[in-house]
């Protein structure tokens, strides 16, 4: 990796902030991992690979809703940004099939929805 300089930081600041779509984030702090986020992350990466879906599965920290971990946040084109809670392997597959493939939200596991501007 090349060194970061004053100029490269200025370039980053100048660039308009990219709104990346098509990702799934799994909360992987201690609270999430204790609740089983490891398995959810594994299932999601495997399913995305198996079905060849152009969606990036990423790790992130804790958003604070610790009582409903593991948390999975999904952002795909044409859908609001949704946070699913109490996700297990089964729900993870539902998220892939319903939310990402059929563009239908999964019942009973949504804890937060953000509308994209």
């Amino acid at each position: 990796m090349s060194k970061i300089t004053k100029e490269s930081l200025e370039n980053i600041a100048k660039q308009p902030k990219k709104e990346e779509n098509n990702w799934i984030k799994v909360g992987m702090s201690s609270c999430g991992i204790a609740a089983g986020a490891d398995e959810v992350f594994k299932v999601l990466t495997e399913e995305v690979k198996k079905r060849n879906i152009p969606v990036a599965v990423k790790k992130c920290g804790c958003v604070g809703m610790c009582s409903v971990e593991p948390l999975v946040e999904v952002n795909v084109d044409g859908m609001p940004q949704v946070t699913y809670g109490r996700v297990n392997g089964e729900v993870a597959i539902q998220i892939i099939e319903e939310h990402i493939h059929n563009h239908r939200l999964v019942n009973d596991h949504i804890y937060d929805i953000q509308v994209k501007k």
Partner: protein
Amino acid sequence: MDKKIIYIKDTSFALDRTKDVHAILLNGLRDRGMQDSVQAVRVADIGAYNQGVVVKVLPDTTYYGVKDEDLGRILDAVKQGTVVKELAARKEPGQLRIVLRNCGVIDPESIEEYMANEGYQAIKKVLFGLKTQDNTIDEMKKSGLRGRGGAGYPTWMKWNFAKKMASDQKYVICNGDEGDPGAYMDRSVLEGDPHSVVEGMMIAGFSVGASVGYFYIRAEYPLAVERIQKAIDQCYANGLLGKNILGSDFNFDLEIRLGAGAFVCGEETALIASIEGKRGAPHPRPPYPSVKGLWDKPTVINNVETLANVAYIINRGGDAFAKVGTQTSKGTKVFALTGKVKNSGLVEVPMGTTIREIVFDIGGGVYKNKNIKAVQTGGPSGGVIPKDFLDTPVDYENLQKLGSIMGSGGMIVMDEDDCMVDIARFYQRFCFDESCGKCSPCRIGTAQMLGFLSKIAEGRGEIGDLDNLRRIAQSMQRAALCGLGQTAPNPVISTLRYYEDEYRVHILDKKCPSKKCRDLLSYKIIPEKCKKCGLCFMNCEAKAITGNKDDGYIIDMNKCVRCGRCFEVCKFKAVGKE
């Protein structure tokens, strides 16, 4: 065209009719031929509590307390793209995320993602925009940021003292020895956004003229340690740490030191001793660490949450930060909301938010819909705030007036089942265990107070014990060496202040009103309800229950060890507890 989305949740405490409402909505959609263009979703949490059925129509219309007969009108409005004005609700109170701005948003192990979210812009601004230490400290002064570790000392003053000291070497330390029971916001920040703390350390280092910084993190947080180490490594690889950072003449190195699990090491002088490799015990102040700290050099110690605010303040300006909060307490505070609350978790709210808003609007109210009794803040150094004061806006001064402290931000909700003597005893035992033993007020005081509290909880209390507790508490507050001992009596003092009646019932009537103190309980079998099944008899380990399936059973309280097993196993509620 994108599909429209309606989402629903029955937020009534009593009966959840979400599924019924969902079915009605699905039928309604089908009747109007909208089933393909609109999806109705059941959600698990809608951000509102005890408001009846809540229906949200994306993007921003919310209806509270919706009756079944209103659903048709709402669907008609959705079809026409309008809003049913008389049903639409106000905006709900929200959280404001400054410290947790990146937690759960970016990948904590990626420096690129941090940089794409304003990362390391603040250190650039400090080195090339503000240029001098004074300008940077001035910006911090404008922000009004106060230490988030508990005492609330203005951060800029701490930095300024250390800056003014002439010394060949100075240090900055990040205090990540989070030990309060129930508090874990520092862990979440370290795990979720390590780079923001690293950047805060760099800015602190520049401001005071330090070239070395230490992260002091407790060993119980392995993931936090791993991620901070990764962040430090990435910074070195990218030239953000080391010599001539970003081409300036600022040099800064960071290292991690692990805490070995002693609560007292969160106290700054004990923490310094621990980093130096000595036994983790405090020493008297002054001299304060900003004058004579680590290896006798001027040292600034800041809490994780404080440091996580720094980059934000520099980027947005101190004045912008100072707009949030109250007169004396600026910015936001992260609370770890735990105990008998529905949505336990981390909550970041502007200073001045009331406890009621935190517990009920964000936390969703008390678990199992019981009545709230009190809220405990500040961990073992804090106190209990009774339910009458729930509308107090949270800031450093207000909490102090109520006999508690802000502390590191633990907020434990207690309901009617919690006994205040038991709570005081729990915290006192914690302080007794964690007292380092160096000064006698704390070493002997915590042991004596725990003794009196145990005596009361076990039914041997005398009315004079209350005065003894108060006397010991006062002398500890005045004479103990460090913060641990000075604040250890706080849970006792505050429970005595608001719940003396409860102590008196324990002492005079030998009863525990919340049925928590084991030794004051007595169990008996209620013959009218007893079906003589023998389940309690079989489960009694102490052989205190005698009888048979024909004559019924009785409990011999002399043999009973009050384990509560019979009470739990009885399916007919025929075992009485009082």
